[in-house]
Each structure stands twice: as C-alpha cells, then as structure tokens.
C-alpha cells in the first residue's frame, strides 16, 4: 500500500490506469485487504458448491437406504440420517436454496432500503420525515415473530415467497444507514455544486451520490444475506418452511425431529450448522474489508495523496 502511494507521488501527472475512479480504488483496496480476500474466497467456494452441488451429489438426497445412522465412512462421506439418507448429498443439494434465498432476499431488501433511505435523507421536510418514519416503524417491528406469523398463514412457502417476507422485515436498518449518509452528503460541496448547475434531483441521488453510498449499500446487502440465511434456517428448524425440499435449515429440522442430538449423530447436524456459520463468516469478512475502506485512516492516506498533487 505504501509503495503504491509512493509510486503515485513520483509521477503525479501520469496516472496509473487502475484505481482511477473511487470505485476502482475501492476494488483495488479490497483486493489488498486480506480479510476481504479470505471472505471472498470462502463465499466463492460456497457459491460453486451451490451451483455444482446437485450434480456431484453421490446420492439422491431424499432416497432412503438400509444404512441408517451410520457415521462417516468411505461409502457415506458424511454419514447417513435415521432413514438412511446421505448427509453429504443433502448438504450439497441444500446449499443452492439457502444461498439463493439469502441473495434474493438481500436484493429485495437492498432495493427497498435504497428507494426509501436515500430520498428520506435527501429531502428535508414532510417527504423525508415520512419516509424516515416508515423505516422506523419497520425497524421496531419484531422481525422473527412477525415472519413466523406470516409464514404460518401462507399457502405457498417457496423461496420467492420467503424472500419477500424476510426482505420486508429486514430492509429498514439499511435504510437508516443510507439516510444518515445521504444527509451528510447533501451538504458536501460537490453535491451543492451539482444542485447549482440545476442537476435533476434523481440524478443527484443516484449518480452524483452513488459512489459514496455504494460501500454502505454493498455492506447492507451482505449483512442482509447473512440475516436471511439465518432466518431461513430458524424458520425451517421450526418447521415453518417447505420441509420436503432440501436446505440447510430443513436438514437441521429433520435432525432435530429425529433426535440426532440424543442419538449422538453429530455428523448429521454439525455440517449444515457449520456451513451456515462459514457463509456468515465469509460475508462478514468481506464486510470488514469494506469497513477498512470507509475507515478514516484510509481517508487520511488519500488526503496525503491529494496534498501532494496540490
């Protein structure tokens, strides 16, 4: 990192092609962050697992066999369930729906939080205040009990339905953060200057401010993904999702239902739990990397660069 700064100081006129824009600099800074790299590799592995999992699964995850509750062996790498189903095959097949739900929910929630949060910070007066109140109401709604109640009444409990329900209860925190950031950006000189040339309001919010909002949006997206995966697991564990389809949550449901813990079948409940924890860790590590990026210490370095260009 120091060498990079030094290189730019040597040739302030000639700019390195990489990392010219804020987004470019952000990506190259993220690449240099070991935490973010580790997180990205971890999440990447799980995404690959989710995509190829169903094809490389050695057995049909729902197929029963006579080998009931066997511990990990050459034949069944992660052992079997009480009804003789292969745990590894369930893990591989379940990855897809868990991650799909996580990312889908995060996408919905992110769109909601941007659409509500940014204008609520940009507009002063009634418009901003009412959008902010809307976010506050959703923020204090107890998410899990509400989701449980809604899920109990829904006839269709597919991934899409669940994503909508979870995102509706999970977008408000991101909206609050975006509101706070937008309120401070609004007074920044470059945004004032954009208003002064008569720039359109939506372009100020979504073009001029976007590079500065992006780290918060991405961080909110990753946070919501973890929230959704954990929420899905909790719901599945309580039997509120479609337990006939495979996800890490339904694996835990069946494990609990068939008393895996009392039977000592650790190979049944540890793998799905560990997978959830590792995905959460990977996404969290990427978030740490983004935090490093927003951290004032990094900004100090950028200011030094700026000072040398003066």
């Amino acid at each position, binding site marked *: 990192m120091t060498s990079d700064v030094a290189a730019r100081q040597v040739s302030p006129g000639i700019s390195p092609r990489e990392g*010219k824009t804020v987004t470019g600099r952000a990506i190259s800074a993220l690449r240099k962050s070991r935490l973010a790299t580790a997180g990205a590799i971890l999440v990447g592995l799980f995404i690959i697992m989710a995509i190829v999992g169903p094809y490389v699964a050695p057995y049909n995850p729902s197929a029963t066999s006579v080998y009931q509750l066997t511990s990990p062996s050459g034949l069944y790498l992660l052992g079997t369930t009480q009804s003789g189903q292969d745990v590894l095959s369930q893990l591989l097949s379940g990855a897809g729906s868990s991650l799909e739900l996580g990312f889908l929910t995060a996408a919905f929630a992110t769109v909601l939080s941007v659409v509500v949060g940014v204008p609520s910070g940009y507009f002063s007066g009634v418009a901003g205040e009412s959008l902010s109140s809307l976010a506050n109401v959703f923020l204090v709604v107890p998410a899990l009990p509400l989701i449980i109640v809604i899920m109990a009444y829904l006839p269709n409990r597919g991934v899409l339905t669940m994503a909508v329900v979870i995102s509706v209860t999970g977008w408000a925190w991101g909206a609050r953060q975006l509101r706070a950031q937008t309120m401070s950006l609004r007074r920044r000189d470059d945004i*004032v*200057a954009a208003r*002064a*040339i*008569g720039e359109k309001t939506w372009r100020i919010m979504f073009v001029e401010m976007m590079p500065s909002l992006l780290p918060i949006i991405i961080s909110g997206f990753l946070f919501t993904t973890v929230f959704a995966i954990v929420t899905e697991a909790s719901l599945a564990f309580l039997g509120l999702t479609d337990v006939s389809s495979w996800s890490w949550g339904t694996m835990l449901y069946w494990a609990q239902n068939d008393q895996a813990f009392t039977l000592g079948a650790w190979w049944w409940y540890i793998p799905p739990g560990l997978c959830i924890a590792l995905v959460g860790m990977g996404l969290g590590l990427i978030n740490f990397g983004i935090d490093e990026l927003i951290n004032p210490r990094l900004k100090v370095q950028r200011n030094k660069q700026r000072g040398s260009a003066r």
Partner: protein
Amino acid sequence: MSSGEVVLRAESVSKTFRAGRGFFRGGGLHAVSGFSLDLVRERVVALVGESGSGKSTAARLLAGLYAPTSGAITLAGRRVSVRAPGARRRYASHVQIVLQDPFSSLNASYSIRHHLARPLLLHGNAGSGKRADVEARSAALLEEVSLTPGRDFLDRYPHELSGGQRQRVSIARALAVRPEVMLADEPVSMLDVSIRLGILRLLGRLTAERRLALLYITHDIASARYFATEIAVMYAGEMVEYGPSEDVTQAPLHPYSRLLVSTVPDPDRAAGRGSDTLVRGEPPDLTRRLAGCTFAPRCPFAMDRCRQQAPPRFEPSGGHWVRCWLFDEQEA
C-alpha cells in the same frame, strides 16, 4: 447607484435558519437580514466580511440554493422562486456560483468530462447533444479557462489536478451554463498565494468577454480593492457599508470597515496608527437580535443611541452609504 443593466437584484432578502428541531426548536439563526444588492452586467461587486458574517449565505441565496425567508430576488426585473425543481433549473441557467474549496467542489468519482457535459446537456448548450459535440464544447470551455489543450483534461479525474486547475474546472463548469451572473464565493482563499492572481485575472477577463455580472466574495479587502468596482461590507448578516471600492478602502466610514482596512498592511497609510483600540469584544451572536446596531457591542464609538435603535442608511457622499449613527447629520 450608477447606470448599467441590472441583471440580478436582491431586495431586503433575509434568511433565518432554524436552530434545533421539532419540539425543542429555538428562535433560529439570523444568517442574513435585509440584504439588498444590485449586480450589474460587466461589473464586479465585492462582498467583504469576516467568517460568519453571512457572505456565503448571501451567495447561496442569490444562487438559488436556499430559498429566502423573506424579501425578493429579481432576475432581469422578474421575481424569482426556486422552490420547484424546474424553476430552479431555469434560474440556474442565468445565475451560477463558484464555490470556495476546489478540493471538495468536484465529485472525485467522475472525470472532468462528466463535470462539463452535465451542465452543457442540462441547459441545451451541447449543440446536437452527440458525444463529439459535447466533447468539442467541453474542450473549448477548458481552453477558455486556460487549461490547454482542453482535450487532454477531459479524461482526468479531480485528484489528478492541482488546486488552481480544479478551480478553473469549477469556473468552466459554471460557464457551461452560459450564465449572466457569476457568484464567486471566496474563489481564491483555498489556493496558494502564487496562483491567486491568475484566477482573479481569469474572472476579470471572463467578466468582460462573457459580459457577466460578477459578485466577488472575500474576506480580503485588499483583493477586493484590486478587483472590484464596488465594495459591500457585511457584518453579522447585515450590509453596513457600500460604495466605490476606492472610497471604501481609502476612506472607510463604518467603524467595522475601518477595522477591516486597518488589518491590511498598506505602505501608503501612515505607520504607527494603532488599530488595537478597535479590536475588542466577541464575534456576534446571530441567534439573538439586538435592538440597536449589531456592531455596537464591539464598537469603540458606541453611543447610547446605538444600543437602542438600529441605524438607517446615511449617504455622506454620492454612491457611498453607511449604516452608522456617527453619520447622522441632523445630530451633528
């Protein structure tokens, strides 16, 4: 006021900012009160005052970035409202502002091309609007502010330019709109002393070439004397003195203007005349409205009357007025 085409006129414009919010709302901060000023084509007016005197708020009111709490701004004789976005854009095509800090007034994420293309496209000054047209016009604007060759700067990013270069880009962005009025809010205060003159000369040249009405805001009364034809002195949100720049700088009337002028080293003025008698008291509290003159608490010549009654304008000589009881001829 002497002849000339008045482009922008402010008539007793005031701006009060709410202090605190909602239930705990205070009385408000009177940033600018009773501000009246004419900006004339091809003329430079300087607005001088210390930090917090309301200079920048006045500029932002004139730029339409704030809506005035009371008073009227008229553009070519027509009253202006800037509350609706469409009206704001129409107003922006006549009146432009150059902000103080060139290091923060350009968006770091976008190239110079973006900064010039947006105003060109927004105000229909981009010809056909095609990329080549926009590029040619952007390059021409950069050359107009002496960034040559213009094309070489288009794909640069703000952090690759020096402070002076950035301020030139900021000026070019304002010109892209083809304004009639340019408000320069301390355009050189953040720059190295060595490049200040270049920027001021550029603004002077543009005033003549583009037939602009220019408002030059500064806390440096010496540069105002060099640059402006008229000087207005602000204190605590009010204009206290106005007149031809030579008169105001060589024979200041208001005690506050005298204080400002006395802080500038000037070889023409007799040395040894102490100015320390003038410097006392605290900066004004803008959340409280005084019954009398705003400068009375700091003024060495304050009389009882000054604390009770706000002084009106007195005009001891033509075109040079002051808001101070010392110049009340009926009294004297």
